[in-house]
């Protein structure tokens, strides 16, 4: 029998053995993946799925880096609602690589967007256009918002300057930017503050090459202030809540995730110290048969998140996270826990639906 390259491939290369036979419990990580020590400072950022990653990292014994801590006088629930602890700093959801790159530039004083103050939906409060839902009810004044932003950006600098590893979850290719200087807004102006003006606000749907270029540019900037920094990229499995691309939201979602996935792959292959973790595949792959999506076919269930993090911890830390004993808890308890998790996950994207309510 003639030899050929496929004869020597490991089981992981074969769908039947590696996927069909494993089902939803598949562990698709092979090859080079960074080991995280207990002392490595791990930072997180990204789209709403990244909140789950942050939550699990924080309670798994890692040195989860939080540079922007709520002041201890604040009530814990109040602080949580104001975005403290969701990520390493209080930047809220960062959906695109363009946003992350611009956050870096704003933090280091290299970019001062022209449109940097929004009036809140109530017509009185003040909103930070670059984290429009971070402050429930908005800020009381422009001075307060600007002071809070200055503090926030100092914590962002601290994070970029001290982290050992950053886990960034790519969420979207679609977004809105300023026609003046390209400043990327996490939410379309008018949704949670500001007012939409087609002359000032442009829709962008990033191409794969753009995202790849932005990853490279970000890594270069990050390494300039922190040469040891490593980056793990993931792609959020959460579909778009709405698409402004003119396409049906389903193909729009597939485009967006495909572009992000491809850019992440290329970056991981091209750049030292950049890795890809397949949370997207674990949740959305056919082996999961959709079981990791909630009834809305969008939110990821806690079961799905736990499986993703179990695989992550296995490879990043050599940890076997304990299986959750779901059978021990009544269904309603499990449901309540899932609901609580969803409620806590403040996903800015969901606000788009409210526009049509």
């Amino acid at each position: 029998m003639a030899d050929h390259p496929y004869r020597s491939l490991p089981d992981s290369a074969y769908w039947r053995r590696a996927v069909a036979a494993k089902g939803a419990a598949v562990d698709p990580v092979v090859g080079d993946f960074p080991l995280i020590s207990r002392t490595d400072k791990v930072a997180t950022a990204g789209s709403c799925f990244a909140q789950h990653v942050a939550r699990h990292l924080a309670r798994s014994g890692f040195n989860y880096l939080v540079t922007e801590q709520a002041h201890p006088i604040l009530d814990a629930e109040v602080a949580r609602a104001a975005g403290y602890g969701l990520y390493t700093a209080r930047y809220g959801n960062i959906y695109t690589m363009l946003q992350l790159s611009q956050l870096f530039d704003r933090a280091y004083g290299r970019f001062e967007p022209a449109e940097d103050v929004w009036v809140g939906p109530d017509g009185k409060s003040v909103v930070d256009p670059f984290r429009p839902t971070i402050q429930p009810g908005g800020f009381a004044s422009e001075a307060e918002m600007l002071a809070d932003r200055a503090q926030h950006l100092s914590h962002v600098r601290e994070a970029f300057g001290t982290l050992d590893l950053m886990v960034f979850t790519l969420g979207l290719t679609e977004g809105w930017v300023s026609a003046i200087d390209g400043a990327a807004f996490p939410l379309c102006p008018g949704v949670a503050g500001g007012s939409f003006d087609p002359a000032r606000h442009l829709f962008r749907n990033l191409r794969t090459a753009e995202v790849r270029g932005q990853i490279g540019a970000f890594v270069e900037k990050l390494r300039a202030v922190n040469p040891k920094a490593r980056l793990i990229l993931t792609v959020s499995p959460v579909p778009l809540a709405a698409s402004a691309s003119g396409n049906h939201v389903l193909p729009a979602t597939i485009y967006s995730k495909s572009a992000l996935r491809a850019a992440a792959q290329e970056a991981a292959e091209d750049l030292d110290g950049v890795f890809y973790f397949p949370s997207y595949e674990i949740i959305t792959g056919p082996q999961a048969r959709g079981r990791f999506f909630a009834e809305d076919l969008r939110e990821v269930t806690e079961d799905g998140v736990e499986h993703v993090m179990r695989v992550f911890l296995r490879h990043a830390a050599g940890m076997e996270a304990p299986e959750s004993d779901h059978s021990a808890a009544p269904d309603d308890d499990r449901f309540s826990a899932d609901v609580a998790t969803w409620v806590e996950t403040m996903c800015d994207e969901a606000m788009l639906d409210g526009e049509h309510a």
Partner: protein
Amino acid sequence: MPEPRRMNILVVGQSHVAAVRAAARTHREAFPDEPRTRVIHTVEEVHAPEFENVVNGDYSAATFGPRLRAAIEDQIARHAPRVASVVGGNVHNVMALVRHPRPFDFLLAEDHGPPPDEGAELIPEALVRATLRAQLAPDFARLRALKAVAGPFLHVESPPPVRDDAFITARAEEAFRGRAGAPIAAAGAGLRWRMWRLSSRLIRDAVEELGCRYLPAPAAARDPDGFLSLDFAADPTHGNEAYGELLIRAIEAA
């Protein structure tokens, strides 16, 4: 010769009843035949338990306990007093009397007082307000419970902060000393002022939602900037007997 008392008064509250009690006692001893001011301190052991229907820290359905209710009802039945509240009035002190190891401040829209301390971490007003509101839950419950027992009442604002840092530092109560550790220092006067103002706004809203009247702290006890004059301070957080006398006169005049 002070003006004679015009009516019986019942003042319900916690630590701020002390100033009223002292003023009432002095006046009663001099003029035993005049109408009297009496006080009920809701957390005194004789009235315990103060609350019923507090579930896991949730005060939304709280009512006064039976002995406390009976004490208030008995006073009303026997003396037909004007009922006033000096409920609460210390949460803002817990948050902002002593300088926190992680110094903080906030900007207050309107009524902002002295400028924030340089170098203090600025916390958005809304977060401070939400935290205050959560910590004031027992005081809000006391106001609701008092309305349920006594009907509409007057609520008198808690004493303004004193301006003098040294007065606070030198006379800080043990509870606050233990809380902050040594060395102890007063929080900035601006922070003390803003926390008091913000707390007062929340209490005023709660009082007026109950259909009750809110009386500001007596102007005669305040310096030109609105702080409590040391002549009327018993300690860093409470008014003295002279302050209590002003409260009684304000309640009578309302």
